């Protein structure tokens, strides 16, 4: 078994007065060693909740209703909290979308990284300091000795994001969950962060789950892509296959809805909006927005079928279209 992470049948609900928000609905995902998996979809499709669920960071009113997450063969759901705590940061690390709020404003960035090394890797103060500087150098922070003594507010957004990445990678995790790591950054800085992630994954063999809504970022660095809509994974394929032969109507709509620099396009926004996740439609959750929806789509949820080797899609229409040709 080469799967590093195996998510099976994961369901996460958030209880509110009106009922349960079904934020993640029976999803299955795997990530292999050294692989970069992209997780794409609109806001509210459950991308971030999935990454929090992997780290077991879903707090009430949120609740994992069903499913399991296996990491390196270990069922994370059954680990005692103490052991799970040692997983987080050491084996599975996270880079969040808002680096400035994720960093402690009262500690210098160097202190934050070395403290992490002392806790998780058991290094002495001096060793931790040395390794911290190495990490800052690795993520290409200029003048690391000087920057290590500065506070987050003294660094730019791109610099804070690099500190977050240095921090996440300091303990050589096997899996990095990167939640929109380049959103809000200028293109040239974003390009550097992506290069850095790709390079670090190649160098350390760490797997990366990259949560993003930017298809450009996906095409740029991901090996495989899972497309999420309204809490469900609707399609999963190797990156080339996904862009050349998208099988799900939502994936196709997503690609057609973005302006691009490399060619002239006619913009077609995705029709409708993400359905309410409180008592969502029982069938395919995309049926209400889909131009090819059939009666069957509104009644039962389409199962995942294989469209090509390694390429799975959940769409009745796809099966039908394939049946005819």
């Amino acid at each position, binding site marked *: 078994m080469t799967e590093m992470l195996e998510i099976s049948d994961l369901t996460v609900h958030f209880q509110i007065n009106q009922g349960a928000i079904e934020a993640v609905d029976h999803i299955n995902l795997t990530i292999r060693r050294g692989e970069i998996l992209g997780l794409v979809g*609109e*806001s509210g499709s459950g991308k971030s909740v999935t990454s929090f669920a992997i780290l077991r960071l879903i707090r009430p009113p949120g609740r994992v209703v069903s499913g399991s997450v296996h990491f390196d063969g270990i069922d994370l759901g059954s680990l005692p909290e103490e052991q799970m705590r040692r997983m987080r940061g050491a084996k599975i690390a996270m880079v969040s979308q808002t680096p400035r709020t994720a960093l402690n404003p009262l500690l210098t960035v160097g202190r934050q990284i070395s403290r992490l090394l002392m806790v998780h890797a058991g290094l002495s103060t001096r060793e931790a300091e040395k390794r911290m500087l190495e990490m800052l150098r690795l993520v290409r922070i*200029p003048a690391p000795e000087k920057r290590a003594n500065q506070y987050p507010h003294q660094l*730019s*957004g*791109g610099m804070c994001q690099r500190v977050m990445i240095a921090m996440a990678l300091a303990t050589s995790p096997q899996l990095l969950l990167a939640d929109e790591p380049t959103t809000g950054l*200028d*293109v*040239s*800085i*974003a*390009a550097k962060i*992506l290069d850095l992630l790709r390079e670090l994954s190649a160098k350390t063999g760490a797997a990366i789950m990259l949560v993003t*809504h*930017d*298809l*450009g*970022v*996906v*095409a*740029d660095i991901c090996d495989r892509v899972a497309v999420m809509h309204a809490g469900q994974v609707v399609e999963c394929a190797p*990156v*080339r296959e996904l*862009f050349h032969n998208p099988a799900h109507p939502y994936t196709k709509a*997503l*690609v057609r*809805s*973005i*302006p*691009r*620099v*490399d060619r002239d*396009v006619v*913009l*077609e*926004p*995705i029709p409708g*909006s993400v359905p309410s996740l409180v008592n969502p439609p029982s069938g395919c959750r995309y049926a209400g927005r889909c131009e090819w929806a059939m009666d069957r789509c509104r009644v039962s949820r389409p199962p995942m079928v294989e469209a090509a080797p390694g390429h799975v899609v959940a769409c009745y229409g796809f099966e039908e279209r394939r049946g005819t040709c």
Partner: protein
Amino acid sequence: MALVEIRDLQMHFPLGGISGTLARLRGRDEPVLRAVDSVSFDVEAGETLGLVGESGCGKSTVARCLVRLLKPTAGSVRYAGKEIATLDAQTMRPFRRDIQMVFQDPTASLNPRLSVRSMVEEALTLHTKFDAKERRARVEELMQEVGLGRDLLDRYPHELSGGQRQRVNIARAIATNPRFVVLDEPTSALDVSLRSRAILLLEKLREHLGLSYLFISHDLATVKYLASRVAVMYLGSIVELSDTRDLFAKPLHPYTRALLAAVPVPDPDARRDDFTLAGEIPSPIDVATGCRLRGRCPLAKPICAEKPPLKEIAPGRFVACHLVSELSP
């Protein structure tokens, strides 16, 4: 004559603090941040001019000078032939009807304590002689124009989604029938599917109402879609100004080229231009003399120590680079 003409616009902010006080005491010039340093361009009637550049390049400051939220340090801003850079609040007022702005953050730019109706109506109360009934009718017309249901009129900003909030901002900006609208990153805060709808709405309104836009963004793909011409800014100056098609087909200034090369393209087989600049944008406080890109540009030559002028190298194509004749075919 262009609708908006900007010539040698400069906006300096005094740095203040201890260094400012010391400089004053020593009888020296107070240190300033040159946010906008000699910027000139035109916006023709009915066109969309894109203004791109990275954070801190001065694009929002240019916008604020244009709508006179800031008083420029020097230079001229002419709207329909009339100088507005030096007007005071009172004399500027009649122009406010014609020149409007949509801000980046759709939430922060709405008043949380006013309903949608009051916010859109406020512009009409201030700038038109409409009576209450006419205002009502106009507000409803505007809601339809931006694609919002009439049922949203009595809602407050917190009851709206991000996309709806931005539509309210747009409705408010076009309420007084302006001719020129400055759009400062109007789509950046929106999610993918909402973004494409906002882009189409802006395009429809421009055609429908005969508006001219200054569209500010760091999202080059959106600029390519909306703008007919594009100005690229770096550290307070325009480095390239060109027809959109030509700029994206063949960027000439090294900065433009690096900027375009950095945009991730949704095509896994895309061939990438690996042209990159060294380091990061320096602080605009101590800007080097000569070409501002000199320290980061891999093509820099000794001549770059002299400031390159923004030269017209082909009809309608302006580039501020000494080496551009060598760069172009």
